[in-house]
């Protein structure tokens, strides 16, 4: 189902992931979060921005451990765990946060 972002229509796949990662803009995350009835805070954006930076370098979403380690370094050890991330993204940081960040969904036995 396509989504409307700032007057533009962007294609998504069946599961709501952006069809073309190059079409991403911050408004994409806002629109998707609104559909999930989630308010995006600075804490959410920290994660989304990190995911995008990592993807740019490695062409894949970071492993949960890489993500929690990076969050722990940046925001303090108490936040460097998957509980904190699930608190922010209840559908799972790997999947929900990746979707907001425009990244393809991690596939496989995860």
């Amino acid at each position, binding site marked *: 189902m396509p989504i409307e972002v700032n007057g533009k229509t962007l294609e998504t796949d069946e599961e709501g992931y952006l069809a073309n990662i190059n079409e991403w803009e911050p408004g994409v995350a806002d629109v998707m979060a609104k559909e999930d009835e989630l308010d995006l805070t600075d804490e959410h954006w920290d994660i989304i921005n990190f995911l995008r930076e990592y993807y740019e370098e490695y062409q894949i979403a970071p*492993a949960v451990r*890489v993500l929690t380690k990076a969050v722990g370094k940046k925001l303090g050890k108490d936040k460097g765990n998957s509980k904190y991330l699930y608190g922010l993204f209840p559908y799972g940081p790997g999947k929900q946060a990746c979707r907001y960040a425009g990244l393809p969904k991690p596939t*496989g036995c995860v």
Partner: protein
Amino acid sequence: MAKASFEIPKLDEYPEVPPVVPGTMAHSKPYVAKPDFQAPLEFPGELPDDWHDKAIDAMGDLLGKYRSLRVYLDSCVKCGACTDKCHYYLGTQDPKNMPVGRQDLLRKVYRRHFTFAGKYFPKLVGAEDLTKEVLDDWYSYFHQCSQCRRCSVFCPYGIDTAEISMAAREIMDRIGVGQKYCNEIIGKVYKIGNNLGLPEKALADTLEGLEEDVEEDTGVAVKFPLDVKGADILVVTPSADFFAEPHVDGLIGYGKVFHEAGVSWTLSSKASEAANFGMFIGSYENMRRVSLRIREAALELGVKRIIFGECGHAWRVAYSFLNTLAGPFDFLDPKYPVPQHILEFTWGEIQKGTLNIDKSANDDMVVTFHDSCNVARASRMGSEPGGQFKIPRNVIKAVCNHFVDMAPETIHEKTFCCGGGGGLLTDDLMELRVKGAKPRMEALKNVIEDYGVTNMAAICAICKSQFTKVLPYYGMDMDMIVSVHQLVSNAIVLTGQTSEDDEEESTEDAA
């Protein structure tokens, strides 16, 4: 956990066979693969006009190739022994999730086209034409079978519903009706080397990160080598071990065991995946193509042995089929089994006494063990019958003081599937996954209440991810699920290890 849009089953104290409610899961079907996901597997992208004839031809082809399929389709006498054995039936009450109900979806078309009575007196023998409605039913219900083979343990004729499901999925793939989850993933294995689509650079970075973490924790430089030519052992493990939790804690455990054993080992960026979803879709050609990567990697790296990490169906493919799919492995060292399971290796080292174990490191846990279907019912470990049950438990008991088994009718060869195996570990089947986990959740809840179990260990990437997802639906903590080698990792005291615990202990000693 996300809010459920379906009713979560209530856990019963004793397993009860629920009454039949037809059609409860008729709406459940995974996303269909787009043409782009079909092409790398050499399947057509869309349903052709002559799909009916093509499907019947495909069925005939499979019947000719696999004698077992014809025997399974011919021999059912409707005794009913299987009806209450499938976790998906127990969780959904849908009679088409009874193994016989599922088999009959294919059997009725088989009878119509491949038996004398079905050709001439279809109504008398329950034979039916393959209509679009029947095809839709196939797509729905053959993606509600995790190919766990529990039903076959109870069938007096040994009919293997998994093989029937695999055949049905292969027939559907050949007429362009593939499942997105499996087929997209197999495409990624061909293109990038693993299910995740983890490129070499990211893999190298992840492994480097693990080396840093372990050194930080222990003060010992445990290596996680990648593409090291001339290493003795090639380790092939599910890519989830590089990515997800608690999988990665298991991978750390393998690394520590190899380090202490003093062997040289390597991972491979080419064979950076143990899983072989070719089996789930019943495609011999794709299963073979996925397997050949392992052979190629072993030859290129010049290793002497191959060891598989914690992955259930990979071990079935490795143990039961690898030699015919990708053999002969005459270039490997004949002193060792081809291939070997990481648990066989670790158990060997424990018996030799090369590992310094401090069991008290796991004293905060009371552990139970979930037998993974493909390990339990389709393979073995070690040289004795039942080794696949004993060796994982032996290893757990060697590193944990507190171990309790779940009810006997839910473990060993009667183990219940986690609910996410066989290519069903996808979000679009979440309702099925949650409901199918019910029997395992009941058995787990009982040992939690009766024995204070705190954690369940598993040796399969799918089981670990599935439980992480479904435990919260049943009010349990996602962190309950642990890797067996995570327990090993906790308990190993590395040579020269310094840890916070040691420092605390020495302070206590001084006091």
